[in-house]
């Protein structure tokens, strides 16, 4: 199967849900017109990233009336976008939904919320505790939000649960300007390369652009295929919508060539963890 994914490297307006919704609709329509089957937006794309005390005012459920236009559009193009989720427990979560065929198919709550240095996510958001994957017409799919991508155990667990397509909406601030590319780009490149090369999955990394209070998000959204090659790469610092092609036959071919997935034996890990727990 071959399908087209649109990487929406956008600059959301901070705290302005209405204008961001319009922007999402326009982006999805543009992608649809270009022949895309799926569009992926960055982390917190519907609200902006540096929300602080606006978090409480902006939290919504994925099935809220306000997101109706996106659910309608998802009859024609599947949509993954970031939002502040109002949990059933009343807690705001840094989440991303996946909509398809008019329904909310899945919501992922960010599990690892950076709270150090320039980051203070746990001050405002609850922590997602549910690692789950879901089946779509594109194959078994998982979502990791920004820092989640840097946790190999989370990504590996998703792989173990059978993920072929990993969506990685992000808001990665630029830092480390000493080299040919940014230091953070190298870090992201390692994460994309290892997820796709060793775990044999497609990774759709969509990072935002623009500035929040001095933090600049660098863009550089990318589609990484199972042989670890970047087959689509968006520019640095500029808003862009990029199309990438996913040929799912690459997955089986790559996993046959480098059968790490087949070799994997989670019983070893489980045994080690249990032995440690019991000691």
């Amino acid at each position, binding site marked *: 199967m071959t399908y087209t994914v649109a990487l929406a490297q956008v600059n959301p307006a901070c705290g302005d849900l209405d204008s961001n919704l319009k922007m999402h609709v326009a982006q999805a329509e543009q992608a649809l017109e270009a022949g895309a089957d799926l569009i992926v937006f960055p982390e917190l794309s519907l609200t902006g990233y540096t929300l602080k005390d606006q978090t409480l005012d902006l939290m919504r459920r994925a099935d809220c009336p306000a997101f109706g236009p996106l659910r309608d559009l998802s009859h024609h193009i599947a949509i993954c976008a970031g939002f502040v989720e109002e949990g059933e427990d009343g807690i705001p979560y840094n989440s991303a939904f996946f909509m398809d065929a008019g329904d909310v198919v899945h919501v992922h709550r960010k599990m690892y919320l950076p709270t150090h240095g320039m980051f203070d996510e746990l001050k405002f958001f609850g922590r997602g505790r549910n690692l789950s994957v879901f089946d779509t017409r594109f194959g078994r799919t998982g979502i990791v939000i920004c820092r989640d991508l840097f946790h190999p155990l989370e990504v590996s667990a998703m792989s173990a649960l059978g993920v072929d397509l990993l969506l990685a909406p992000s808001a990665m601030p630029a830092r480390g300007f*000493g080299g040919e590319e940014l230091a953070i780009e190298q870090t992201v490149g390692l994460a994309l390369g290892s997820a796709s090369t060793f775990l044999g999955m497609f990774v759709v990394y969509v990072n935002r652009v623009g500035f929040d209070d001095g933090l600049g998000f660098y863009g550089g959204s990318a589609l990484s295929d199972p042989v670890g090659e970047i087959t689509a790469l968006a520019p640095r610092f500029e808003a862009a919508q990029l199309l990438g092609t996913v040929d799912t036959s690459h997955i089986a071919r790559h996993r046959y060539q480098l059968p790490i997935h087949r070799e994997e034996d989670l019983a070893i890990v489980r045994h080690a963890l249990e032995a440690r727990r019991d000691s």
Partner: protein
Amino acid sequence: MTADSLALNNTLVYDYLRKFVQEELYTSGFTEACIALSGGLDSAVVLKLAVDALGAEHVHAIFLPYKASSDESRRDARTMFEFCGIPWQELDISRMADAYLAQQPGIDRLRTGNLLARMRMAVIFDQSKKENALVVGTSNKSELLVGYSTWYGDMACALMPIGDLYKTQVRSLARHIGLPQQVIAKPPSADLWAGQTDEGEIGVSYETLDQVLYLLVDQRCSSAEIVSEGFETDLVHRVEHKILASQFKRVSPPVAKLSQRTVGIDFLYPRDWGK
């Protein structure tokens, strides 16, 4: 090791800072920038950056001399106006400053310097209102860290595009963007009296200062580790002391908390809230 670590990809840095200036202004609803031009390197880099980001017609630079300002400052400021293709603007602060200074017999150099910096601040902020502009600051990381700047004087601004660049990095960026050699090569100076230089005042060259700051701040090295890299013990301790002594300049004044939500403590919004 340290010199290499301070080297930057100036193409990336400049592209990024141009976007920063654009977005910080446009998101706040402004198109115009005001910059106080001193004739020195920092304001020269910020001027060129603002012109490249916003267009020359949207940048309002003003030379604000005091009667003790040097001829070189005027010459270099004029060079930068010409280099950037913007009309010469000068507002002499001597009369307004002297009206106060005449009432303060025995005022020392430090107080005078602070007063002049705050006079310039008052003028540039008034001009920014006239032009419906934001004041773009010219502080660099070296001076922010050691506190070689006037609180609510030259530190006062709406955005600081070069506030995370050490002085030596600003100089390297200036070379990259092709600023006139005379501006790049001149010894940095607050130009408050004849022969004054930053390095004479701070007591160390920027090359050395920046390396010590980089190790202390960016690498979080201990002073013992920095001394073992070959820097003088006394120097390292002096730099540490300057950072501590100027911390008050880098934070907002503490507000006495009484209520559930207090400005500056737990009333938390980004600057562009609602924009």
